[in-house]
Every structure is written in structure tokens, then in C-alpha cells.
């Protein structure tokens, strides 16, 4: 009985993924990936996500380290604020970004005066991806830093290491498995980012149209291109998931990392 229900559930989950690859011959998928829409989307996605990942890692890692060293109310408030984008509907994130950084927005005047227009540019895509994906990294990174035995940084200090050396020589190497897993999760979320991007950055081919947006756009234009991009994203996502599993298993001995994302908002 259990086997049957599990089988049904599994079939339900796997079928849509398999269907993407079975609809048209593999050679058609590959040639569709060569279309200008697909190639542009690959380039835009690669550029924006690379930039966003740099921002997330450079700002998120020290933030996570700071949070992990804190206890009490301040920490709880900071953690809740960091986690908010995680539960926020992406459309709300898009509106928020627009009224904060858009031309008529909160910082719009300042940004405008500097001669920069953010909305509907690559910068907007980067901000949207950073906004929705960073909590995934920060949460996992906080847990990774907290999992380090606190006597190890203490021992390092008695051995003459200042706070900087303790961070780079002890905390970072010991937390790197968790940091890698967090980065992979943020990457996966950023790859699938749709709602906030389409509202804040639009869907201009070659400028702001990422792979996820291209699927939606090509749906009406050339269905094979939509399929091909979907297949590509499935492969990349599977590789990311596998690497998360390997990183957490390799470093903690148990691959018990919970992918605690509201799954309905992963791809919408």
C-alpha cells in the first residue's frame, strides 16, 4: 500500500520533468537552444546571477558571521528581517523594489541625480535576484557558522590570532561546506527568479530577459525554445541540488540540510 502511494507520488513529481525531454527529439531541443532568444537569455542570466552571487557572498558572509555571534532580541529581529524576502510573494518584492529604487521611488531622486536609471536595466535584474536569493544564503551561512565548535575560535585566539585571522583561518574553512550549500541554494533561487524581475526589470530580450522570463515569452512565440530552456534549467538545477547534497554530506557527515524554501514560490 505504502509502496503504491509512494510510487504514485513519485510519478507525479517526476512526470513533468521527464515530459520536458520527451516532447520533441533531443536534437530539436539542442538546436532551439541556439536561437537568439535562448542565447541572449543565457548571457543575461549568467551576467546578472554572477553579479548577484558576488553581492550575496561579499555582504552576506560577514552578515551571517555577525548574526551567528549574537544572542538575544537584536539577533532575532535581524534574522526575521533577513528572512522576510523568503516568505514575501515575488510580486510584492517587485513592487517594493520599484517604489524603492524606481525613478519615482524612495531613492529614485537620489539615484536619478547620479544619472543612473535602475528600473528596467540589468542592474534591476541583479537587485531583484539579490533581494529574493540572499536570505537562502544568509540563513544557511548562519547555521554553518553556528555549527563550528566555539572552543575552536577561542583556541585560535589564545594562539595569537586576532579576529580577522580567526575568521579567515578557522571559521571560514570550517564553515565552507555550509557556505557552499547556502550559495548553491541562493543560486538555484536566483536562476528561477521571475515575479520580482518582470515587475522591476521587465522582459527586454538581451537586456533584462533571463532564462525564466524567456520561457514565458517564448511560450507564445516558439514553444521548442521554451522547452529547450526548461530542459537546460532542469539540468542546472539538478546539478545544484546534487552539489548541495554532496557538500553538506561531505562536511557534516549527514546530508540533513533542509531546503526550507516555500516551494510554491520557487518558480512562479
Amino acid at each position, binding site marked *: 500500500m505504502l509502496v503504491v502511494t509512494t510510487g504514485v507520488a513519485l510519478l507525479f513529481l517526476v512526470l513533468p520533468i521527464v515530459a520536458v525531454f520527451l516532447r520533441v527529439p533531443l536534437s530539436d531541443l539542442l538546436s532551439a537552444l541556439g536561437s537568439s532568444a535562448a542565447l541572449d537569455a543565457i548571457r543575461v542570466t549568467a551576467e546578472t546571477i554572477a553579479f548577484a552571487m558576488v553581492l550575496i557572498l561579499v555582504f552576506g558572509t560577514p552578515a551571517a558571521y555577525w548574526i551567528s555571534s549574537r544572542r538575544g532580541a537584536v539577533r532575532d529581529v535581524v534574522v526575521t528581517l533577513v528572512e522576510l524576502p523568503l516568505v514575501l510573494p515575488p510580486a510584492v518584492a517587485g513592487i517594493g523594489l520599484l517604489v524603492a529604487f524606481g525613478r519615482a521611488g524612495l531613492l529614485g531622486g537620489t539615484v536619478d541625480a547620479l544619472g543612473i536609471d535602475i528600473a528596467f536595466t540589468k542592474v534591476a535584474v541583479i537587485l531583484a535576484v539579490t533581494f529574493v536569493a540572499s536570505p537562502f544564503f544568509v540563513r544557511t551561512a548562519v547555521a554553518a557558522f553556528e555549527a563550528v565548535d566555539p*572552543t*575552536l575560535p*577561542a*583556541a585560535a*585566539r*589564545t594562539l595569537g*590570532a586576532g579576529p580577522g585571522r580567526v575568521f579567515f583561518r578557522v571559521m571560514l574553512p*570550517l564553515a565552507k561546506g555550509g557556505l557552499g550549500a547556502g550559495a548553491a541554494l541562493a543560486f538555484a533561487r536566483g536562476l528561477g527568479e521571475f515575479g520580482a524581475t518582470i515587475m522591476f526589470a521587465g522582459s527586454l530580450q538581451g537586456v533584462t530577459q533571463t532564462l525564466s522570463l524567456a520561457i514565458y515569452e517564448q511560450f507564445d512565440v516558439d514553444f521548442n525554445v521554451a522547452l529547450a530552456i526548461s530542459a537546460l534549467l532542469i539540468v542546472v538545477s539538478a546539478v545544484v541540488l546534487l552539489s548541495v547534497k554532496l557538500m553538506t554530506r561531505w562536511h557534516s557527515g549527514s546530508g540533513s540540510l533542509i531546503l526550507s524554501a516555500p516551494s510554491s514560490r520557487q518558480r512562479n
Partner: protein
Amino acid sequence: MALRVRFTHPLRSFVASAELTVSRGETLALVGPSGAGKTTTLRVVAGLLRPQSGTVTIGETVLLDTQRGHDVPPEQRRVGYLFQEYALFPHLDVFGNVRFGARDRSRVDDLLERFRIGHLARVRVNELSGGERQRVALARALARDPAVLLLDEPLSALDAHTRAGVRGELFGLLHSLALPTLLVTHDFEDAATLADRVGVISDGRILQLGSPMELVSVPVDPFVATLTGAMLLAGCVVGREDGLTEVALDNGFTAWSADSGVGRVHVAVYPWDVSLGPAVQGDSRLNHFTGAITSIAPIGNRVRVQVGPVVARLELRPGAIATASFKATATRLFPADSGR
């Protein structure tokens, strides 16, 4: 250069305080149950914990003076700290661990040789045995050329048969280093063999500080007596004659003590002052407890035998009748309310 520590710091259920001077070449051990505030003292000396108030000095160097707001960070204090369970860096090999604290390579090579771990230089620390881990941790703690050595339960992570050997090595090392050494342990035997002076600590307070001999011969209270290995027999003083106090024990026996006391008391007696025989012997051992042997527990090359309430050759099997005897002068009386 002597180490001087004085501090008060509130912990969850009590206030930890200590005032200690450890001279050059001296080893002072703090002994007490876990959670008594022993490690707190080490953390204060190392600078890992800033106490509510206090001072720490090594020779003329002031490391901490809370009144003047002076607090040297741990990385600038010359303190060698051997952590409980050793706290070796799991992502580094043996060489990397020792190198972490050392100024240069040659210092590392010297230490690896000194601790006979040179052949393990490229081994990850989680592949080492308990005794090897302890040697790596010691080598690492000495890598910075510390002016003070702090040892937190240096032997507790070792199994029983490597322990005695390592204890002997450690004793020799402490002697050759001639540093002021502050050692923390829950085991009085470890403290007595390694330290010149022992402080018994309970609920954050040092109850008695003296040589191991002093603690055993004149324990100030029942806690110190039990910690140093005494049995406590509860009873009530019923009279005094010929300079001896008669105590009616709760278990029905009567004990005589050369100590004086009134009311509810604890009679403290050490197992090594108790002799065991098949019948009551007519000698000066005034206290004779005759009863069935209730348990026999081997401890190293000796056995611990319990007769009635007293732990003390003859037919050693549970159920055999034996008499445990000890002199009235080998006992001490403590008021019962001082027991904890």
C-alpha cells in the same frame, strides 16, 4: 614571573570568585565537580571571559584591570591554553595545528620532535589516538612560548590505561617548563600527583587551598573530605568520655572519634585508615564494624570492600562476615549542616 588572578563574576546559579597566586615553576590545581566554576578561572586568565571585576597579572605585566578598564585581548596575552577535549583544528594536520601558534617553522620542528609527533606531522588530527591528540595539543599550546600554562582537564579525555603514563609524562614536562601552571580537574588523584598546591572549588568558591597532604590530613569541611576520598558516616553525638566523642550512627553502629562535636555530625574516615579482619581484634583501633561484605570493587591493584557502612584480608566474597576497624584518631567530625 608569577601569575596573579583575582576576580568575581556572576554565573547562572552562583557567583564565581578566586584569588590565586601561582609562582614560577609552581603547579596549582583547582579541583571540584563539573560546573563549579573551574574553567571560568582559566577563561579569565586567557582573556576569553571578561569578569565583572578583577585583575590578572603575569609578573609586572597587567593583563586585566577592570577598574581601570584595561583588558589585553587574548591574542596578545602570552598564555598557553590546553583545552578540555583539546580543541584541535579539524581542518588542519598536526603540523598545521602546531604551526598556527608558532612564530616560525623551526619552533614547530622543535616541538614536534620534543613531543615525539614528528612522524605524524602530515596526519589529520581526527586520525590520532587520545594520547597523540594530547601531545599535539600540548605542543600547540607551547608554540607561542607562553609565560603561563593553563590546563583544562588534561587527562580526562584519555582511557584508563594510557592515562597513568601520560600523567607521568605531563608531570615531567611541567617540571622542565618551570612556568606558573594553573590546572583544572575533577579528579583529586590527578591534582595530587601533578600539583604542588590544590584548591578545592565548589559553587564558584575556593573552600580550601593547600598541599595535597594538608587537604587529606586536615580537610576543612565534609565536601573537601569526600573529594579527597573520605567516607562520611552520618550520626548523632551521644556523649564524651576519656577525650573521645561517641557518635550513634544512623546505620545502628557506634563510632568513636578523637574530634569533638555536638548534635548531628558526619564522621569522616579515609579508606586507607581502615583495616579489615575476620573478627574483632583487641588493639587500639577503637572502631569495629562487623557485618556482611556488601560489595567488592577492584580499583587498579587494590580492591574496595564495603562492610556495612564502611569501605575497607580475609575471605573476600560478598556475604562473608568481616570486621572493619579504624582508630578514633583517624576520624574527623563535621557538623551535619555543613554537608552539602
